[in-house]
């Protein structure tokens, strides 16, 4: 977040209902594989983080299932739209439920939102179930809610897992 954007955002606090609507819409974009639109929800300096351990302190000195700055997140999304992404041939179908939305804090225009999610993924005759906690740092830029940071704590973060291609 640059300072100008922060100033602009600081006077506004997001309601729980606004945040919930936003999260439901985000889940829908992912389920419908509208990854470019999903990417557009992130601020330029955003990070997207899926830790590999429960209670993982830092993405810098412990490996993560996903830890993308904006540049890597863009690359991830470009790859998802490539016809040569063989790990998505056939494509995964997913269905997500986002619920238990609470606002944890709202400081300097950054609203920290916690929610619970369940995602079912179906691909090549196998169905997988993921569940966990989303932590979003949401900001308002030009009247639109944007993600400054998103962390996905999977309940099975440290389990042996088959490849993860569709973001959570």
């Amino acid at each position, binding site marked *: 977040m640059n300072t100008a954007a922060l100033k602009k955002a600081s006077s506004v606090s997001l309601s729980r209902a606004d945040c919930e609507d936003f999260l439901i819409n985000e889940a829908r974009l992912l389920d419908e594989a509208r990854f470019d639109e999903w990417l557009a929800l992130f601020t330029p300096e955003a990070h997207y983080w899926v830790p590999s351990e429960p209670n993982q302190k830092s993405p810098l*000195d*412990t490996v993560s299932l996903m830890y993308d*700055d904006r*540049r890597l997140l*863009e690359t991830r999304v470009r790859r998802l739209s490539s016809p040569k992404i063989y790990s998505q041939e056939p494509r995964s179908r997913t269905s997500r439920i986002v619920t238990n939305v609470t606002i944890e804090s709202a400081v300097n225009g950054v609203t920290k939102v916690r929610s619970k999610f369940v995602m079912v993924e179906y691909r090549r005759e196998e169905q997988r179930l993921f569940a966990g906690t989303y932590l979003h740092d949401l900001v308002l830029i030009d009247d639109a809610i944007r993600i400054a940071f998103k962390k996905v704590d999977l309940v099975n973060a440290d389990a042996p897992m088959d490849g993860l291609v569709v973001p959570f």
Partner: protein
Amino acid sequence: MQAYSVDDLSSAVQPARVHRRLYTDPAIFELEMERIFGVAWLYVGHESQVRNPGDYFLTQVGRKAMVVTRDDTGKLRVLHNQCAHRGAMVVASDCGHAKEFQCVYHGWTYHLDGRLKAVPLNHGYPSDFDTKNPRTSMTQVPRVESYRGFIFISQAKDGQSLTDYLGHMATSIDDMIDRAPDGEIEMAGGVFRHAYNANWKLYLENLCDAAHPWFTHRSSIDAAQQQSDDVYSDGTGEIAIRQMRQNGAPYSFWENQVGIWTYPNGHSYLGDYHDDKKLVASMEDPLFRDYIGILEAKKGKDEVKRILEVRRWNSNLYPNLSFMSQFQQLRVVHPISVNRTVVNTYCFRLKGAPEQMFRNTISFANIVNGTGSLVLTDDLEIYNRIGIGLHSDGAEWIEVGRGYHSDVRDEFGGLKGKNSTSEVYIRNMFEAWRGYMLGDKAGAAQAMKESA
């Protein structure tokens, strides 16, 4: 299940092809667990995980649960994680520090070296019950040895020494450690545990495969090449994108400039295929400049020149280990069943190197070894496709003949591919496979060379 004779096993591995059943038959898998994983030297962990007496960690050897400990005298021990009473798993937390191990079923208590220490209610056992009898101990793995901190075990009482097993490939382990200014590395940074529905052998068969990245990893190569440099990056994306771009090197490069070397016992390494200054030690990068300065202060200019001229990408120690010294990554293969494999991948810190080097190691692991990465997910997809494909019996044989007629000897007793895309390292692993499976390692290896 089919029973396999020596002749069946022997003829299943031919000079340039192997039988499909080696990847699909549960009976073969059971034999492999007994004759390869039950005999060969296997990597189980690193001494930095058990620095002090009482430190321990759990590991799996093939499918067997084991605990690696350092006993009161400082000696490394590897024990079956199994109570001598009724067989319960004794140690339940992944790692820690203990004075003794106690089974929570009936309270049998063991010393750190596995010997029985105490039994509650011990008056009730038969009159010949003896806490000194090895039958009442947690079973020790007969041979535990480490090479420069890398702990290996063999479940065979005697056989080849660890030094003979490693042979020239010990230089790959040396390479990883030599890069540490303080002469020491430590396992750090967590673990990836990835799984796929296919045979364990496929994992090592992919790691020195220079013919596949350009094709299999196309989506990430394209995405990284199209990605502009001016998008926000905190450095996390940097290493990743550079690595993906390198995978897009032209075929002529893969063919001629990488290099593939193989050594006895199924070992191999692929040369480094990178020319990006962030991915190879180079004076142009400020971080490397700092690092090389520190290294030179400790080891002298000539030695550092020698160290950095060793340029290896993946090194494979058959049958369960693969590692890479440049980014300090290591993977351990755990066969679960004929059609299911788990691979654990770890990182190392070079002691005395700038902390940013370790952070680059983490970033690199996230993109190359990560279960959710943009690269490895394609490899997992390929293993799964092989797992499906091989269950058709359209083709009885798997071809591993690429480069067969052009392999050349090297000065350290190995065989290398004339081209880097030679499948020589797969043939070399099957030579070791046949040796183990026939229970006459040296003899079988010799026969295969003569037939070649």
